[in-house]
Structure formats: C-alpha cells, structure tokens
C-alpha cells in the first residue's frame, strides 16, 4: 500500500493518458472477445441448423451441390415416414421403460450411499470411498465380458434386466461423489435436532436430508436420464430382438439399413432430431441442473 501512495503523486499528470489507453485496450479486448464468441457460436449452431434443415428435405434435393440452406419444399412427412419405417413406437416405449427403472433405483441408492459416506463414521470409511472413486477410472469394457457371462448364466440375455437391475447397486460412482459433496455442506445441527425428537435414520434421511439436497437430486436426475437414454453399449450387447431395442439401437439399425444404397440422410437427420428431442427439451427446462451436475465435481472437489 505504501508503494501505491508514493507512486500516485509523481505520475499524476500521466493518469488521464494511462486511463485512456486502458479504455482503448478494454474496447479492443471486448470487440475481439465478441467476434470470437460469435464465431464459436456459429460453429456450434450451424451443424444443428443443418440437421434440422436436412430433416425436412426431399430425397431429390438432398445431394444437390452446392447445398441448399433452406429446404424447399418443406417435407414434414419425412418424420412420419422415418418413424413408421421401423417399430419406433415400440423403441420409444422400451427406452422409457429402461430409463425410468434405472433412474429411480440409481438415484435412490446413490443418495443412500452418499448419505452414509457423508454422515457416519466407521472404520475404513476413507479407504472405501477412495475405492469407490477409483472405480470411475476402470474402463467399462474390461468388466463387460464377465458381466455378460453372468447375465447369460442367469438366463437374462435378450431381456431388459441387465440395463436396469444393476442400478440398485449405486452403479454411478460420480453420482455418489456429487451427492456426498452436497450432504457435507448441510449443517449437522439439523439432524441432531431430529434425533432428539426421536426420528430414526430412515426418517431423517427421507424427511429431512433428501428435501435439503433437492437441487443435487435434480442435477443427478438429468445426468442419469441422459446416461440411460443414450446407453448404447448395454442394449447392443444384451438385446437381440428388434422389438426389444431402445431408441438408440433402433436408430443404429435404421441408419445401417438406410446406408446400403445412397444414404438417406433426410430420414437419418429426422430420427436423430427425434432421438435428441427429449434431452434437448429437458435441457431447456432444467438447464441449471445440467450445469450444476457438471461443475460441482470439478470446482468443489
């Protein structure tokens, strides 16, 4: 602070010039920043626009070069035709069925485990928690083969069970980690008061703790929805019957069958759009929770 006091008076005549320079600098930085941000936004948005535009084109106008930006005529029927080409109603039902079952069990168990790690002291707690975190680095492909053999022994190949039942075992370590962070931030006094009132562990967890971490539960909810909705590896390996496919696998089958001759990109883009629609809709409604779930692990951890 002393150096500042000394520096000021000596250079007082210089201050306006320096300030002017600074303002000019700021302006240059701002202009450059906005330009780059706009370019970046264009890089992100142009492919999205192209997906929508293609999905509304007619087959004849698809491969015209140079490309046409706007579809003319606009063919909404692409969506209906693509949807009806395969049993997509069934795929949608399967996707929703697996997603809902896996999500419920996954969130329920992750929150219980996180609560245990955050609030109870027991021997080897830290070792076990590190073990939990280390499973995040284990490549899924390694355990895939033994898991496949297990489900085969249980007679559950070509059923929805491998994609849903495992969720009861808190199978998302990152969700446990994220929820634990939230539980840790809640003051202990709240539970202590409840214990004095004679509440048991489950009551405290269910009636007091869960409502307090609702934002985190919603953050995990959207992550979990996204993860299960997009899960491709599981269905690819376990399901053989077309009618049991979820949307993603249906989309892959669809894309492959459309690629044999000239790829019908208008149908592919229509189905990609529909596949993405629920998640995009969820994103616009619950954006806060997407970002919360994404950033909490990195910044607080």
């Amino acid at each position: 602070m002393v150096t500042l006091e000394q520096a000021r008076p000596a250079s007082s005549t210089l201050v306006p010039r320096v300030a002017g320079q600074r303002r000019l600098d700021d302006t240059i930085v701002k202009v450059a920043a906005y330009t780059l941000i706009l370019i970046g936004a264009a890089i992100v948005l142009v492919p999205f626009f192209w997906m929508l535009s293609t999905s509304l084109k007619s087959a004849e106008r698809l491969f015209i070069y140079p490309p046409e930006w706007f579809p003319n005529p606009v063919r909404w029927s692409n969506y209906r035709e693509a949807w009806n080409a395969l049993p997509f109603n069934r795929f949608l039902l399967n996707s929703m069925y697996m997603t809902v079952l896996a999500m419920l069990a996954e969130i329920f168990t992750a929150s219980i485990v996180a609560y245990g790690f955050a609030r109870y002291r027991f021997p080897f707690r830290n070792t076990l928690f590190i073990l939990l975190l280390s499973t995040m680095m284990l490549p899924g492909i390694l355990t895939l083969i033994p898991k496949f053999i297990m489900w085969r022994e249980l007679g559950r190949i070509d059923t929805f069970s491998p994609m849903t039942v495992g969720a009861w075992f808190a199978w998302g370590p990152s969700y446990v980690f994220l929820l634990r962070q939230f539980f840790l931030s809640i003051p202990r006094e709240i539970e202590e008061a409840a214990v004095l009132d004679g509440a048991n562990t489950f009551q405290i967890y269910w009636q007091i703790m869960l409502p307090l971490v609702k934002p985190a539960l919603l953050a995990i909810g959207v992550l979990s929805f996204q993860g299960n909705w997009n899960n491709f590896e599981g269905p690819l390996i376990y399901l053989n019957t077309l009618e049991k496919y979820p949307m993603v696998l249906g989309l892959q089958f669809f894309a492959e069958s459309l690629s044999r001759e000239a790829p019908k990109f208008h149908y592919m883009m229509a189905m990609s759009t529909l596949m993405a629609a629920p998640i995009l809709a969820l994103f616009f409604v619950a954006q806060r929770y997407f970002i919360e779930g994404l950033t909490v692990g990195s910044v607080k951890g």
Partner: protein
Amino acid sequence: MLSWYTLTLTDYVVVGVAIIALMVGLNKVLRRFGVGREVATGYSLILPWFLGFVIWNLGPFVASFYLSLTEYNILQPPEFIGLDNYVEMFTGDRNFWPVIRFTLLYSVINVPLGLLAALLTATLLNQDVRGVGMWRTIYYLPAVLPAAATALLWRWMFASNGLINFFLSPIYNLFNLDRPSWFTDVDLALPSYVIMGLWGVFGANTVILLAGLKNIPRDLYDAATVDGAGRIRKYLNVTIPMLSSTLFYVLITSIIASLQTFTQAFFIDHARRAGTFMNVYIYNQAFEQTKMGYASALGWVMVAIILVFTLLVFRSSAAWVYYEGEKAG
C-alpha cells in the same frame, strides 16, 4: 410381449427388496454383535454400493484377468493358455498396432486441442460479456446431443456433398483437388473423428472451466493490478494457477473419456484400414468373433494405457497444479 416387461419388473422388484432387506438385516446383525449404532448404520447405508463393487467390479475384474489367460468362445469352457493371448496381440495380430495407433493419436490430438479451445472460450466468456447465460446455453448444446445423433450428423457434414466440403471448396478449387468423402478416406478418418470430438465436448469443458474462472476471488486481481501487473501477467500468474485444479480435473476426465470412445464408431462407416477405436475392436473380438479370452487380454492393455496416462498426469500435477489449501503447509 407383455412378459418381456413383467420379467424385468419382477427381477427389478426382487433385487430392490432384497437389497433393502439386506441393509436392515446387516444393521440388526451388527448391533447384536455389539457394534456401535453409528458404525452399524454407516455400513448398512453403504451396503448397496459395496455389494455392487464386489459383484460388478471386483469379481469381473478378477474374472477378466483369468479369462485373458484363456481361450474362450463362450460355448465351451475356457481353456488355459498362459500368456499366448498377449504374445499373439503383439506379434501375430495385424490389426492390433493400427488400433493402438488410432486410439492413442485420437486422444493425444483431441485432448489438448479440446482443453485449449475450452480454455479460450471460457476466458472470452469471462470478459464481462453480455448474455453469458445465453452463450453458455449455446456452447453446451452439443454436449446434450446424444452421441448417436452427433455421429450421424457429422457423417453427413463430412460426406462428399456435405457442408464441410462446401466451406472448403475455395481451397479445393485453388489447389485443383477433388472433394473428399472424409470418413471413408484412410488419411482423413482420424482427423474427422477429432473434429467431431472437439465439437462434441469442448462446450461441456467450457462450462466447467467458466465455473472455475467465476470462482477465482476478485481481490486477487485487484492485488495484482496494484502490483502493476498487465492483462497477460495477470492471466498467467493469477488465472492459470487458480484454475489449475479445475484444468487438472478436465484433463483427467477428457483423457479417460476420449480413450474409451465407442458409440460414435457404430454410426459411421469409416475407412477400416485406418484402424479403429480400441473399445470397438474389443467389442468386435468378444461379441462378433466370440474370442472372449483374447478380448479380455485387449481389455487389460486398455487398462494399462489408461493407467499410464493418468499416472503421468498425476505425477506432473505436483509441478503445475496449485491447491489453495496447501499454501499454509
């Protein structure tokens, strides 16, 4: 058809009820043996994860190591063959090295570029620009798009009549080149995946880094200003060190994710001669060739690769990652 759904629902309910019963039971048993209330409850609460760890991680982990030493086509019992799978991989399998090359090159190019792009974008968004929320939404959009849709979209973008070639046509005209079909070209398949990968992830990383930047206390910059630091000095000496733990997190997660690229390759017919991703190759070996033993051995190579990369980053982190808690000690 209804039975498909009821079968799984039954499995689901049975397992769920069993787990809750086990939790309650464990608590009772521990209490009866005189274990304290807090410890007994703690163990009971983490039981679902612990069971899962044993059944779905530890067991398969050990099993996969054993399988990697066998020849196993799933119909006959596994036959022990020692290290033959590993020998075969390094000396006999002509596909192995191209796959390793493809996977490593993809990560080595994709991760640093993605990190730099995200850092640049996050820095720009942190310059008191208007509408940060809107920009953030836009940049995050590709991360919300399912990988399957991203892959189909970019396959079309990179087609010979696609948008990318349209944008590049002035360059092609200048050098008198033909419009390539990117993914099916042996030399361009990898760059195409890199570009698609960058588009897909850099927005998510930007959002994480932006949150990290917003977390840096303002007074640090004020102090640096008082000390006469310019914009660039401040960025290098305040921003980067304060952001380093977030950068570290993004780096580790990007490496692990990029090495395990899988889904996209099933939606794109790229030039197979260029190689493919390791996980896709393992899938082919295991479930199309039904060489489960060999595929398990490949899985262990994958573990080794991930381990080497993460250890390198962890080791180097002492030199460049700055944790605030450490400065007292």
